[in-house]
């Protein structure tokens, strides 16, 4: 096989397949973990019947959704109705093209120098899925869900952008790989100087993924599922997978931007331990996934703890609290970087 074919087609394809498989399976299994974690928070057992200790529950759910009748409301916009779930899931998966799971090329699909812009841009496309899904269902609840979602995503994109820019200022690069490398070189992860940015980023991230306490667009008790009320079967599963994939995206980005990506924890204190022969074999993606899992656990913890915000309160929080805070934080951090003058 000629060399270029190998480098540019076969290896990336294999990587793509692996990433997609892991991601989709991971998203499916997140539902299982979420149910288990919520169950432990809520003093009950959670799924424990399908397979050993319930481990096949996610597979059973997927099978159920596959064979379920796929309903399309009679008076819906058929094409848009079909398009919406695709619009949700594709951008969510696309983002993983630039996420670095490890230091070397083998651990990532690609590294582009505007990776951060790519992530922000592509993940914003997902919102169209929700709006169009809500609108095309021809259901008033769905429409309200879609509208809520539109307002919510637009409002929270702004402070999130400022939070991300804070990291860019500190790292001096838009490349995700470079951002992690800078954290390694400095020996300080960005969550320390950027604790406020981290907070803003993660709150916005929870809001962008429509999760508790910001799950207004679907709000079972108000809008009966909101934008996906009319969806069933695999189309609904796409919305669901999209939501969980987005959770992984937000968590992965938080890891890369603030928690040193694939770097092992406590680089300064435990440096000898990580380089010792006992633990040196641990592949970097392990640390990466560990941190991602921690963030995802936070998501689930929120869900077990918080009531839901109301629409106007959500807007107020976004525009009146998070936006000024992230803006002020950006100025402070930029000033700090300028004073220290280490990088430009």
């Amino acid at each position, binding site marked *: 096989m000629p060399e270029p074919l190998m480098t540019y087609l076969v290896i990336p394809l294999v990587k793509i397949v692996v990433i997609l498989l892991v991601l989709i399976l991971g998203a499916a299994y997140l539902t299982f973990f979420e149910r288990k974690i919520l169950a432990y928070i809520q003093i009950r057992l959670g799924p424990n019947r399908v397979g050993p200790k319930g481990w096949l529950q996610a597979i059973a759910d997927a099978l159920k959704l596959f064979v379920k009748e796929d309903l399309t409301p009679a008076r819906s916009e058929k094409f848009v109705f079909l398009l919406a779930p695709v619009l949700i899931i594709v951008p969510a998966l696309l983002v993983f093209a630039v996420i670095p799971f490890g230091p070397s090329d083998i651990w990532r699909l690609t590294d582009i120098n505007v990776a951060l812009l790519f992530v922000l841009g592509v993940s914003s496309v997902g919102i169209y899925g929700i709006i169009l899904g809500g*609108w095309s269902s021809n259901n008033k609840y769905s429409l309200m869900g879609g509208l809520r979602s539109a307002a919510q995503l637009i409002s929270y994109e702004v402070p999130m952008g400022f939070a991300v820019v804070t990291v860019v200022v500190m790292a001096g690069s838009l490349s995700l790989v470079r951002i992690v490398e800078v954290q390694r070189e400095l020996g300080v992860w960005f969550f320390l100087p950027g604790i406020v940015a981290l907070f803003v980023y993660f709150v916005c991230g929870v809001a962008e993924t429509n999760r508790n306490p910001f799950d207004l667009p679907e709000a079972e008790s108000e809008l009966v599922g909101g934008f996906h009320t009319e969806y069933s079967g695999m189309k609904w599963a796409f919305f669901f997978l999209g939501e969980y994939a987005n959770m992984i995206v937000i968590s992965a980005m938080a890891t890369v931007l603030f928690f040193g990506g694939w770097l092992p924890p406590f680089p300064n204190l435990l440096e000898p331990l990580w380089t010792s022969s006992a633990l040196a074999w641990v592949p970097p993606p392990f640390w990466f996934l560990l941190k991602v899992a921690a963030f995802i656990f936070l998501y689930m913890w929120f869900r077990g703890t918080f009531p839901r915000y109301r629409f106007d309160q959500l807007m107020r929080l976004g525009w009146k609290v998070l936006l000024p805070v992230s803006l002020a934080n950006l100025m402070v951090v930029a000033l700090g970087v300028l004073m220290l003058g280490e990088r430009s």
Partner: protein
Amino acid sequence: MESAHLKAFADAEEMEISFGPQHPSTHGVLRLMVKVDGERILDVKPIIGYLHRGTEKLFERETYNGCIPHTDRMDYTAAVTNNQGLVGAVEKLMGITIPPRAAYLRMILAELQRLASHLVWLATHALDIGAQTPYFYCFEERDKILDLFEEYCGARLTTNCMRVGGMPFELTAGWTDRCRAFIDQFPAKVADWERILTKNRIWRERTVGVGVISAADAIEWGLTGPPLRGSGVRWDIRKVFPYDRYDEVEFDIPIGTNGDTYDRYLVRMEEMRQSVRIIRQCLERLPEGPVMAKVPKVIKPPKGEVYFSVEAPKGELGYYLVSEGGDTPYRLHVRPACFINLQALPEMVRGQLVADLVAVIGTLDIVLGEIDR
């Protein structure tokens, strides 16, 4: 655009939403026609009757003790207090005095029922506002109460646990110990739930100032129970017209100040503590003796009419009994607390947001079985 209806949809400024009867937050089969402008509610029109079973008509056929199971099915989260109201009405019309042990047993069961009913309220109310977890905590405790009911009368939900003239059964051995064990651990649980909710910022933002009704309006709209007390009116049938032996136990009536959803929440939480207090006193004083008064085999109240009400968990539950001297009621009308409390709903939500609607439905603590009868 191929479909004109979608265009009309997009152009309309006001939208009418049919909220229910299969909506998860209407606590049954309530239907609300909600007129909204965006998220703001312009008007609400409740449509009820989906669960109408003609209970009052059925009463006219049943013997007096035969009516009791029908009352179970009105407010099915508080069957004991429903029983209590009915037997109280018949006893009042016949002039029966029940033995003190029966009276104390009724109070214990009724207060346990109040706890169980408030637990269902807290569970669903919190769930409506988006907090899932209290639901499971509350239902765990409620199950313990239902276990006590089951042990006493064999039923968990539709208890049918009182008879005209007293109580049908003696307590099983060790029941009082199990009941005491339950109420001993209960206040700590209430404190736990309060930790999840009372100071929670989101909970407060969602409930403070939502569904406000002033004390004067509350009386005008006939609100009773926690919705009335939440508006700051210290009024409770157990104090005003004490039945059974409520005049012999000490308890406080908590009231709110602002008449909003948060105050009603606090009132009910405090009521749970007060119920525990009542049960504890009742268990301490529970006298020995018969549980059934000497009543004729066939209950035949004299010709006449009487109204008797109890403080059900939802409010004043009254029975208006008209007898012609036969062994079935000539007319037995129920004054359902939920029915009348629900009537104030449009008043309380007008001008607020759709999300507040579910909060206010939750705070009114309605049960459609009692509304529709």
